């Protein structure tokens, strides 16, 4: 009997499968770093994992707190600076990068800056960080979305996907040929971009997810592949790795905070008791 899994675990595993051996990989903050660890441990031991803070060729041993976390590993091969990591990307040395999405439109353009008015935002989101330059110059970009949204029109274009669709990205002359988002992976399925129109379409659904469930998240008439197949279910090895490496990803943030708070309160009680004894 195969191991049971959560949709969050499935998302991470689907992302990890996008990393191949011997690739130069830029990992964004959050779930891509867990996916990177999984890939390196299970199927791509020679993948070169990199972070924009200048950490090159590292193997995560514990979950990362951020993209400048040099304490998640035991040493790494090259400590360069942020400037050089981006100029390496500009020169075409990065095979694949992974970015999280807050708002996405049908041509894979992204907003991670603000909703509403830029100067008087409804929601002020984190900002561009490294996303904009990576999606511009990495050979391919895999997008991940957890809790983000599909919109007809972005409030702010932070990171360029296929612009107005068709050949508009290529025609602008500002990006390497063939670059741009290759896939969007969510907790419901995997989306690709049409080769000609560059419009997002549903390529795969995760096991047990219905196409109608995916469609209701999308405000336009979502295109669907001629034959939508199910994502291959995760292997026991993949699930076991996530549980061991990143149990808080398995449990989810809310449950993790609940348990950590309970643990802290327990500690505090114990401290109080030990004071009374003294």
């Amino acid at each position, binding site marked *: 009997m195969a191991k049971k899994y959560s949709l969050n675990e499935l998302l991470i595993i689907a992302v990890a499968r996008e990393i191949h051996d011997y690739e130069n990989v830029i990992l964004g903050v959050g779930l891509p770093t867990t996916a990177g660890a999984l890939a390196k441990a299970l199927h791509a031991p020679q993948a070169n994992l990199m972070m924009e803070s200048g950490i090159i060729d590292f193997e995560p041993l514990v979950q990362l707190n951020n993209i400048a976390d040099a*304490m998640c590993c035991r040493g790494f091969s090259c400590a360069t600076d942020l400037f050089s990591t981006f100029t390496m990307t500009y020169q075409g040395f990065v095979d694949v990068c992974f970015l999280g999405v807050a708002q996405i439109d049908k041509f894979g353009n992204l907003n991670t800056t603000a909703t509403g008015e830029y100067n008087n*935002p409804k929601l002020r989101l984190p900002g561009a960080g490294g996303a904009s330059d990576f999606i511009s110059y990495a050979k391919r970009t895999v997008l991940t979305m957890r809790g983000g949204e599909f919109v007809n029109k972005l409030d702010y274009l932070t990171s360029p996907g296929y612009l107005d669709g068709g050949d508009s990205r290529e025609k602008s002359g500002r990006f390497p040929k063939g670059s741009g988002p290759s896939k969007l992976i969510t907790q419901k399925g995997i989306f690709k971009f049409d080769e000609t129109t560059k419009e997002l379409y549903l390529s795969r659904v995760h096991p047990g997810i219905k196409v109608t469930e995916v469609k209701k998240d999308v405000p336009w008439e979502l295109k669907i592949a001629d034959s939508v197949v199910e994502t291959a279910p995760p292997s026991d090895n993949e699930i076991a790795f996530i549980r061991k490496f990143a149990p808080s990803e398995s449990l989810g943030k809310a449950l993790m905070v609940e348990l950590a708070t309970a643990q802290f309160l327990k500690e505090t009680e114990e*401290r109080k008791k030990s004071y009374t004894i003294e």
Partner: protein
Amino acid sequence: MSKQIEKVMTAKEAVNKFVQDKDHLIIGNYTVSACADLVFEVARQAKKGLTIYSQSGIFDVEILVAAGLVDRLVSTYVLRSGGRYGGSAVERALQNGTLQIEDYTNYNYNARLVAGMHGFSFMQVFEGIMETDLFKKRSFLGDNKYRVIDCPFTGKEIVVVPAANPDVCIVHVQRADKYGNAQYWGALGSVAAAALASKKIIVSCEEIVDHDVIKSSPHHTIIPAFRTDAVIETPWGAHPTEVVGHYNMDRMGYGIFQQAAQTEADLNEWMDEWVYGCKDREAYIENYVQKIGQKRLNSLKAKDYFSAPANYGSAFSSPWDENGRERSMGISPEEIEELMEERGLFHG
């Protein structure tokens, strides 16, 4: 001209002496090893009307904005705590119209510092930016946020950003000597560029070490002494963020701050306790031990994993060999004088 030799002082003295109202102040650290002690001190001394530069303005920027000291912010990344239903001090200040922000990408922001650290007036950035709203929507920098010029060699359009030369940089590192040679390792980010682009540099460190330690590991020095204005020894100076080789990020301590940042009232309460309520870093750590416990603090301490020493040795450190003779010519000091006399080399 070198700066004053005696640079060791307290955070209070350094901020009082080198940070002024209306300064352009840059946070030297990027995400990790945040100069928390110095940021708290700027807040306590209430230096007003600041323009803040921060590569990743999560922790530092929230505190300074919450303290009401920031008019303008140049950054690439700010806090959003609690997702859709959360918030941040930055968001509230933007909504109230008390803060102006200029957004850059990580590379664009860093390029401004790289231009600044080398004394150039601008730096080239990647042309893809022209397709984004970072290029199209401009705040207080207006036309000078980005400019487009023709490359004199290829004729192609290139995008450039102006150099940034902040008035003062505050930065936390692992170690420094009393002269101000500052050593930092780990994720290098834009730490050196932020410091070296600035007119004045305040360095806080986990420990002040002998100059000999610096001399045998110069590859870790990111700021040479002649550029540094102040050196502050402040253990746990970056808590609740992490310092490689000293302590891990305190997820509990950081989580309490992040949670508080969601509302103005909670963040003010947090500031009252941890920033205004502690006169210095020692008092802050005492409060932590009282409230959260020594055990938690101890659990963050790093176990050693030393870098293999780089061998800076050489075949000899004197021009004279073991017989007292010069290595290449094979003569003694006395013979040199005789020769000089003989060949008429002496003047007068």
